[in-house]
């Protein structure tokens, strides 16, 4: 399998998306934002330290800035835009609003994706597991307290809706 032309396909949010007129060394983050019109994933550090570009790739939360997009042509990618199929909010997104987990908002999409990934694999995480799961997502506004509260609220909401 190879991507040697300037046209290749990515599987993003359940859709086949064609990338064209791009240098094949571009990061997945750049391709998502600049080529595919999906600006939800944010670019800040571009070196895997801030987590604001977090996406789910083949079931793992990864930094999209550290993925060469052309190497992901056979991967299943989910961005923050693809967490729901319509305009509704997930329990995590809703909890961020009700608990005040958003201040400037720049880190929020990466945190939402990281927390969705955590709760999909571990629906009732301990406080330590939550801290560990978002240790790669840096927020300079909230001090994290309200984000932890949002996770607790989301856990409760998800449990109630799954019953």
């Amino acid at each position, binding site marked *: *399998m*190879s*991507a*040697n032309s300037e046209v290749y396909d990515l599987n993003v949010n359940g859709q086949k998306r064609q990338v064209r007129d791009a*240098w*094949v*060394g571009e*990061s997945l983050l750049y391709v998502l934002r600049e080529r595919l019109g999906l600006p939800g994933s944010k670019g800040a550090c*571009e*070196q*895997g*330290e801030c*987590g604001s570009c*977090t996406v789910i790739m083949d079931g*793992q*939360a*990864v*930094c999209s*800035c*550290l*993925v*060469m997009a*052309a*190497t992901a*042509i*056979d991967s299943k990618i989910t961005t923050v835009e693809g967490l729901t199929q319509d305009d509704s909010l997930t329990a995590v997104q809703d909890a961020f609003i009700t608990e005040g987990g958003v201040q400037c908002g720049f880190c929020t999409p990466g945190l939402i994706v*990281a927390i969705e990934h955590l709760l999909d694999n571990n629906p009732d995480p301990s406080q330590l597991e939550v801290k*560990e*799961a978002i*240790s*790669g*997502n*840096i927020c300079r506004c909230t001090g994290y307290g309200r984000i932890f509260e949002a996770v607790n609220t989301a856990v409760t909401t998800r449990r109630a809706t799954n019953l």
Partner: protein
Amino acid sequence: MTVLIPQSLHDALAAATANPDAQIIQGGTDLMVEVNFNHRKPTDVIALRRVDEIRNYVVTADKKNVVIGSGLPYREMEHGELAQLLPALAQAARTVGSPQIRAAGSIGGNLGTCSPAGDALPVLSALDAVINLQTATTSREISVHDFMVGVKRNARQPGELIVSATLPIINGWQGYAKVGVRNAMVISIASCCLVIDREKGSIGVALGSVGPTIIRCRETEQWLAMQIDLKNISIVAPNLLKEFGDRVAKESKPIDDHRSTAAYRRHAVATLSRRLLTRANTQ
């Protein structure tokens, strides 16, 4: 520019041998930083993310060694069987970056980049790991000590792929400790791995981030082996413990850089090594 995504080790080796100058990308956590900052613009790339043969580990039939595929992500080393067999490696793996980085990064990447701050490298050094390198037609084993040549320089030849690292299962104690500016998500300022093989009565002390490459404290190891009985758990007297740390610090070769100072790093490896030796004799 071409990006090849071989689906097997056979195809990956063929691709690397056919294009020895191609840039190898495994997890991308080092290479993509250089690409993002325009420090490197690769022309041809071989991506190893679909090579399943290097993304697992096997315990040898005699149960004496673990062969770890170069692409096995760090997240797979944090818990479970591998963590029981190689606790120091599990401790090092847990300190690598964040969950996002540990889902991508691997021993092959640490060896390929060969930065003295690579978290797994002191563990490989203290355990005298053996690295397997292959081309389409050759296969060779090289000691990790010979593999790491200098700052971001290693003995990999053009056209070769780092396939695996073989680590011994020891009967004894092993641990890893690291200092950074915060708890999560840091590149080490100084790190230390200590291994005591109680069967052989030998000790391995390896330091990261305090020299051009990983430093093995061979003189300190020999000195300690003459002071205490390494075959048995024995409380290390405070004066010996102090001298042990002092000797480790003396063997380090740190520099001042953007992450820390040489003086602090010397202090840090003395403290880390003393802590590990204390743990080894109390756990």
